[in-house]
């Protein structure tokens, strides 16, 4: 029997992942199988051109190489898996292999957490394992829905930890690799740029350091894009990486600002005609479950450039504060804030992107009562907001129990870690807000299907998105306020 607490918690979490192997998996399972097939069966020049399947390769080249590595093993497990023509192939061997690849690649995250907390107390390490590796969001998205976020978030944590500890080149290389695996992480680039410029590239060796950093990043990008530029594939890749025909909101609205915006637009579209003002609105626009560009009925429709501008505007106080005081303790909060801003205001944000916020944020969750409170509210909202991702009946009790149990244990352990009584960690309003999720879920799961049967199918999703968006917006406002200059006199450590 395992007696070391760390090994026990890791074994238990591994057991949960193994038990989830036969669970429902989304089309992302076929996506990754197809990418293994593409990279295995086709020459480099055709990777970003192939359209045998609708799930074309749309991640940067390093991720394609990762899929290529997987395919080298997959061919021995089940050769049919890596055939291009095996559309929607899912033999038992294929399922076990792909699920295992997610678990094995997640070791990057396990070691990242272990490394980041290697000097912390055992209790703190156990808390981190529970908060990060035991997070229901990670389990729901990676091990049920099927994605490789664990590995990518591990890389992010390695990068952040290295930069915090002063190993800037290593951290930059890790970040460059990360962006070349999933370009979504490029939202962190302003933070990295400003911090490294102001913290690392100064003093007598400023120019050499700048050149070294630049060379490292360019080298990584070169390794990644080089072969494809040589094959003349760059425009094709860029077209695949930035598909702007997808619409502002995903089929299921991420709980961000645009969810509130769309809800307001829908409300106005209903109210204004009653007041006598004409409104043209196609039926079930934005809520038809389709991924397409739609125009709002009443409010102006933002273009991708507008959303980018808003993200940068939201990020400005943080960048300004980093420019003036580029301290290592501010790096992690800045990175978390940058991810949150891009989640709140970005174009076509998936609800899964909230993982980019909650996982790094957990590293600092036990540092103070304020951090613990912020983390708990934000991560609980994230867990519940992700639940609609799974809509099958078999997984329903599993996802509900995972969220409830994790929330209870995380709350108890966080209170212990920051030495607070359970009743005083959250404010009354925060407690009321979080408890409000219970009636919401009861309505969505039980009352709505009974009352409306199959009418208004999007309403429960809309309500979940909007209610979660309210919570996340409030968290974002609180975190944004920390970066404003007039708050620098507060007792909050990282802004001083």
């Amino acid at each position, binding site marked *: *029997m*395992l*007696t070391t607490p760390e*090994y*026990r*918690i890791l*074994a*238990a979490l*591994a*057991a*949960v992942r*193994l*038990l*989830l*192997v*036969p*669970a429902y998996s989304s089309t992302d399972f076929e996506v990754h199988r197809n990418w293994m097939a593409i990279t295995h069966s086709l020459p480099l020049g055709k990777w970003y051109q192939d359209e045998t399947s609708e799930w074309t390769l749309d991640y940067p080249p390093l991720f394609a190489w990762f899929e290529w590595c997987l395919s080298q093993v997959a061919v021995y497990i089940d050769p049919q898996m890596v055939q291009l023509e095996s559309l929607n192939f899912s033999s*038992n061997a294929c399922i*076990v292999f792909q699920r295992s690849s997610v678990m094995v690649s997640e070791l990057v995250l396990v070691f990242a957490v272990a490394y980041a907390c290697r000097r912390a107390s055992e209790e703190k390490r156990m808390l981190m394992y529970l908060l990060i590796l035991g997070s229901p969001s990670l389990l729901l998205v990676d091990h049920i829905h099927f994605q490789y976020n664990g590995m990518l978030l591990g890389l992010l944590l390695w990068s952040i930890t290295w930069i915090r500890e002063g190993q800037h080149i290593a951290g930059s290389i890790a970040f460059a690799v990360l962006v070349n695996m999933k370009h979504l992480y490029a939202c962190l680039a302003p933070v990295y740029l400003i911090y490294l410029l102001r913290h690392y590239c100064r003093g007598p060796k400023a120019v050499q350091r700048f050149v070294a950093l630049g060379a490292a990043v360019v080298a990584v990008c070169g390794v990644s894009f080089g072969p494809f530029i040589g094959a003349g594939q760059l425009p094709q890749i860029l077209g695949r990486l930035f598909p702007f025909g997808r619409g502002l909101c995903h089929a299921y609205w991420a709980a961000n600002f645009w969810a509130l915006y769309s809800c307001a637009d829908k409300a106005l579209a209903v109210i204004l005609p009653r007041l006598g003002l004409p409104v043209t609105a196609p039926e079930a626009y934005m809520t038809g479950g389709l991924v397409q560009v739609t125009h709002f009925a009443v409010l102006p429709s933002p273009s991708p450039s507008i959303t980018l501008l808003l993200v940068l505007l939201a990020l400005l106080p943080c960048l300004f504060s980093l420019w003036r005081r580029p301290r290592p303790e501010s790096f992690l909060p800045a990175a978390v804030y940058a991810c949150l801003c891009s989640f709140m205001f970005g174009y076509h944000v998936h609800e899964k992107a909230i993982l980019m916020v909650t996982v790094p944020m957990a590293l600092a969750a036990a540092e103070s009562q304020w951090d613990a409170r912020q983390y708990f509210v934000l991560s609980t909202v994230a867990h519940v907001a992700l639940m609609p991702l799974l809509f099958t*009946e*078999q997984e329903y*009790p*599993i996802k509900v*129990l*995972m969220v*409830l*149990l994790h929330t*209870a*244990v995380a709350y*108890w352990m966080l*209170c*212990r870690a920051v*030495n607070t009584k*359970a009743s005083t960690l959250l404010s009354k309003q925060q407690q009321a807000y979080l408890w409000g999720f219970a009636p919401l879920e009861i309505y969505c799961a039980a009352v709505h299907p009974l009352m409306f049967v199959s009418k208004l199918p999007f309403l429960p999703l809309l309500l979940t998105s909007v209610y979660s968006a309210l919570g996340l917006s409030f968290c974002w406002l609180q975190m944004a306020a920390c970066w404003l200059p007039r708050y620098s006199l507060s007792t909050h450590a990282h802004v001083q």
Partner: protein
Amino acid sequence: MLMIDKQSAVISCIVICGSALLTRFTVSLHPYSGFGVAPHYGDYEAQRHWMEVTVHLPASEWYVDSKSNNLSYWGLDYPPLSGYQSWLFGQAIHSIEPDAVALHFSHGYESPHSKFLMRLTVIASDILVFFPAVLLCLRVFGGGKTVQEKQWWLLVVLLQPAALLIDHGHFQYNTISLGFAAGAAGVIAAGHHCWGSMLFCLSLNHKQMSMYYAPAFFAHLLGKCLQKPSMTQQVLGVAKLGLVVVATFAVCWAPFLATPGGALQMLNRLVPVKRGLYEDYVANFWCVTSPMFKWRRVYTQQALVTMCAGASLLAALPSMIHQILSPSPRGLLMGMANSALAFFLFSYQVHEKSILLALLPVTLLAFDQPVVAAWLPVWAAFSMYPLLKKDGLHIAYLACLLLWLAVAAPPSSLRSGQQSAVQTGHAYTQSTGSRRLCPRVAARFTGVSGQQLLHYASLLSLLPAASIHVGQCFVQPPARLMHLYDAAYVSLSFAHIFAIAVYLNISQWSLSSSFVSQTHSKRS
């Protein structure tokens, strides 16, 4: 460290029960026995078929061979309570997905929705019967223990891998009969003999396998009756219990007693003497020794049945005598474990799943035998691996064992054999009797406590098990010895189960000496 107050103790109990539920739901995702294996399928189809039979046919026809219900296709061969349970769940499924239990037309019916419903019925019976019984036992047997020890005990009882894999993977309803048996043990230990007897009769009426516990309950209750001061009170005590047993049986068998010969037909189904000495591979004495001595060739079936009955009763006799002489709550659990192990090792037509009967009292004894409680479940699951592999449950097996490795290590306070406070009230004393066996010998030589020595020994015993698993993945057995691996599984498991049975029998006897000495010390 913040003190754990009563509120957080309750919350941690709820969290542990919630985690146990979550584990059950996730194990339920895995395949069941006989999935897609036409024409007979497996235990899942058997249960579904019983729902079909009990919902559509009147009770008087449940045990009668007919076109819709006969032994060639999963005839109902469990006692009436199983029938009522099938009827109840069958009605529920009939109201949601009637095709799943349609008479005649639903043979081999398999759909994701009906699988979910069937799995829900097992989990529902867990929640309604097993969990309350376990919590009752925690209350009764957990007096004087720290919160951490109680948390560990609850995890051990609720997350036992063999039960999870059989009930929620392979698909069975052992949880109901085991729940009633556990409830009976708890209630009797708390002093309410009549209610406890009733609960045990309910367990017996759900699955006749609970007969394995009968010697222990009989001996304990007889011992308690004999402790009464006067002869008349003793006779009255026995009579009261007898009345309760008869009444419970009468209520359960009522629909079948109405028709003449109905009870006989049921008994015919319940006691399958026509079947063999053992089926497939099971880690008991007869199967493991059969390569060396061909029992089935040498003796007739009648002789074998008698031999098995004799051997089982002989093996269970020491623990029975102990309980008649000095009954105690912990002795009852020990008796249950020893009796179940005796019957598992020596009885006729034993299934590999029957080890679950021994596992229940052993895990309930976790406070006193922490190392055995942590290790028998591993060997029980290991012994069932051939069956689980056939069902496609090998990933679930690995996961459940991994989870067990994570939770089963006893807290240090139990491992080092520290004595907890003596609990008054129900005279449930914490004695060091069971720890006296190894500690004196071992401590003299190594300076390590007995429990710790057992702990290290059991860690070492993992190696052969792991090597058999690894070997099976990579090395093919020769054509002459096709069942080499199956034989290896049961032989290795038999060795450990037999050793544990011997150890528990000796421990039960050392219970009484310490009990006697404690009562002496209380008087003096």
